[in-house]
């Protein structure tokens, strides 16, 4: 990270730390922690420096029962979840740096939901937030598996039993399986864990829940499909008669990029309106009180505009148009674009015309002292000069 970014990051996480620990006892603070731990619901998520979270007993109390069980069964997983949530927030802010809605988490410090009440609306931005969060959890958990920080990560059992639902074998059998056919699955566990943990609350009954499920799944799919295959030849004399390949976890930035592309092309959906659109098995079900868990992800959303094609698994979906982000809206927790920096030469969303919603902008010339001509050594040493540069800053009125 660049030094200034790092400083930002540090202060940010320190602030979160204060919120967590400092207000931990108060009701407001409690609500936050609740949000963090329930990382599944991004509406109440907070960035938190890893390590703080799982030590706090109050956190544990705020998890849903199932999440608590998951955390108990997989020691070390909460730290990964927190890290993933943090990554998601930073990535969201990076991707939306130059847009009217900039993934602001300012509200969080004032005691509201992390991303503001925007997540109560089923709009594009919400879709992105859900997708990036579940992607973040998937990514971070997979990473933690690769590091050995979570010892309960599972193996890929395709070579043992071809049946999809294999009951957990006793431990001795597991060791035998490892010695027989190896074990090299990181993303699979991350994917499944994210489904279990993040999607806990979403039963897929209402349209909004379906939207959330779809977007969560889309986020995870992007982590999976952004993976790159790497191979190594190790046959006779190192020739390619024997070649072993594995999947490499993508950088989270590339996942964010891919999701941002999907955000731009997100499709507006609606409920299948007739019974005939419903999948067969649901119609046959006499009393569809509870959709079976396995089938939770098997639904088809219909595009709002019948001419559009139905959204795929990797597409983001939303239900209603986004609210205007130009003006402050306390009801939705929208800060507005007043005071945002913009680019006067651009005609895109970061340009002053669009960003300031036609209100006009102020131009200031200021001298900034910046680090420049930095030389790095690979780890820790940064030697920089300080340069005074003239900068023209445009700010929305």
């Amino acid at each position, binding site marked *: 990270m660049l030094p200034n970014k790092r400083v930002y990051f540090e202060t940010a996480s320190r602030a979160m730390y204060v919120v967590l620990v400092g207000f931990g006892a108060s009701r407001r603070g409690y609500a936050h922690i609740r949000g963090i731990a329930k990382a599944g619901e991004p509406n109440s998520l907070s960035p938190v420096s890893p390590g703080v979270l799982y030590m706090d007993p109050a956190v544990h109390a705020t998890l849903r029962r199932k999440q608590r069980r998951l955390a108990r069964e997989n020691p070390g997983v909460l730290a990964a979840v927190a890290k993933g949530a943090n990554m998601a927030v930073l990535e969201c802010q990076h991707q939306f740096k130059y847009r009217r809605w900039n993934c602001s988490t300012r509200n969080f410090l004032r005691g509201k939901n992390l991303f503001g009440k925007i997540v109560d609306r089923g709009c594009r931005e919400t879709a992105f937030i859900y997708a990036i969060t579940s992607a973040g959890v998937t990514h971070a958990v997979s990473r933690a598996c690769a590091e050995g920080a979570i010892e309960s990560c599972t193996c890929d059992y395709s070579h043992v039993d071809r049946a999809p639902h294999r009951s957990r074998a006793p431990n001795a059998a597991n060791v035998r399986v490892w010695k*027989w056919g*190896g074990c090299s699955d990181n993303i699979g566990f991350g994917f499944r864990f994210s489904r279990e943990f993040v999607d806990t609350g979403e039963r897929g009954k209402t349209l909004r829940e379906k939207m959330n499920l779809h977007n969560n799944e889309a986020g995870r799919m992007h982590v999976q499909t952004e993976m790159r295959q790497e191979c*190594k030849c190790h046959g006779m004399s190192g020739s390619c008669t024997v070649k072993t390949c594995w999947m490499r976890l993508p950088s989270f930035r590339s996942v964010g990029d891919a999701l941002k592309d999907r955000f731009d092309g997100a499709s507006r959906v609606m409920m299948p309106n007739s019974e005939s659109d419903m999948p067969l098995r649901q119609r046959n079900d006499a009393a569809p009180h509870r959709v079976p868990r396995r089938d939770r992800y098997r639904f088809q959303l219909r595009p709002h505009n019948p001419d559009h094609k139905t959204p795929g698994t990797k597409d983001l979906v939303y239900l209603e148009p986004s609210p205007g982000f130009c003006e402050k809206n306390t009801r939705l927790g929208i800060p507005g674009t007043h005071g945002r920096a913009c680019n006067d030469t651009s005609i895109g969303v970061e340009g002053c015309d669009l960003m300031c919603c036609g209100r006009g902008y102020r131009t200031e010339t200021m001298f900034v002292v910046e680090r420049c001509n930095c030389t790095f050594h690979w780890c820790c040493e940064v030697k920089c000069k300080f340069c005074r540069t003239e900068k023209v800053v445009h700010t929305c009125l």
Partner: protein
Amino acid sequence: MTGTIIENLSGRKLAVLVTFLLLCQLTCFLIGGLVAPMPANAQNILGTVCKDTSVMKNDTTKWFYNRGKGKCQPVDLGEVHHDLSEKDIVFAFQMPIPREGETYDYSRWQQNLIGVLQVDISYHSQMEVKPRSTITIDARLAYRNKEDPEDGWKLYTQSVEKRVLDCDIDIKTDEYLYNCSLIPLFELGSLFHDYYLLNIRLPIDTPDMNAHIGHIQDMWVTVINQNGGFTKVWVSLKTVFFPCIIGILIWFWRRIHMLERKPVLLEKMLLSLGIALCFLNAPLEYLTLQFDLPFMLLLGDIRQGVFYATLFSFWLVFAGEHMLIQDTSAQSSLKQYWRHLSAVAIGCISLFIFDMCERGVQLRNPFYSIWVTDLGTNLALTFIILAGISTGVYFLFLCYLVYKVFINISHKRQSLPTMCSVRRLHYEGIIYRFKFLMLATLLCAALTVIGFILGQVAEGQWKWDEHIELEYTSAFFTGVYGMWNIYIFSLLVLYAPSHKRWPVNENTSDMQNLSEEIEFSRLPGERSEISSLTSFIRKATVD
């Protein structure tokens, strides 16, 4: 007059034998596809960044790891650490990584361990990574066994290595990652201990060392080990094939010794082919379960090399022996084939030298790689290209020889109608069987090549059915292995001298026309026990 078994075998018996061998072949393929797991397993391990607070950095009794008693203090490289210098940073890789809540350990059935390093470097406009910059790695490998205490790591090997870091980037924006090529890190020929631990430091002893490698975010090591199940299936196949081939070899040799004449070149070649196959088949892997044998990778290469060399030489001699044209008097010997065989020899020797330079040196230093230095790369490439050229030359030679054999045979075929019918039928049978064996060879070679290409195109698993999943890579290996065993087995059987008297020959001898009778009687003692196919061709050339 006696011939080889293939000439005396009835069509029905041959069919039965071929069917049986094909069934064996299918079994080998299916054992690999249905029983064996993938040949090798790869584990991605993300390095834990540990803080080395000690003053002396070259203390090899101090180890850093992230699990178990005495684990290190992890550091997040994303944050600023003013109290750290790059000397204090250690990347720790503890292998194997735990799964299912269990601490897995390596089994000796898993045979070998290959490590590949991947570095995640983020882009900084002020610190671009130059293409092909050098990274200096201080790598230390430790081991521990189950009965040892959790902090009882012992030094296995240690080395400071230079590697070329080949990175490029598409989007030059801060915090995007470079695409860096894989860096081969180590190869262990034996997986004798239960746990291994790799500690990597990036030293900066000189100002230029590790200065142009950018900002490292993460280090990944992918460790590849052979799967225990695959080794078990493989060794079982070997255990079955080994005595079979030994048995048939003894039978073959005894049969030859029962003859009055000395063994001919083709029989000697067959024998050495059988011995080379035995060398390849010997299940030496059992020894690795008891002893630490790091040379097994090298030995495996040598065993395969010897086998291929003998097989290639055999084909040359086989083709050559079946078209002797002029000097029928001299017993053919290997010397006659020196020009053809030199291609095989050059190829094998250059591959052997390359292998000794790579895997031989790795016996001393598992982190060594010949590909790192420019000189080494050129040297390795020279040997490999040399081997490639001699393989090409060899195949050209072989094709030429086979072409000539077929031309010869078709020439003689034209003179067949002039012979009496019984004799003609018999010769046609011989030609048919000779072609049959040539076809078998071609089929084996083609199957190997096609299987290999299919494996490259469609990686991993093949699905024929919803429930039957074939582990194609393993099936390919066991299939090919079984195929060549069966091929040589059948060669030994079919080309062994037959003891059966040749009733057809005796019955028809009086019916043959005079000129042929004369040909046969010219060198009666010498010709009597040579395979009738060769005798036929020799005789025909004299015609």
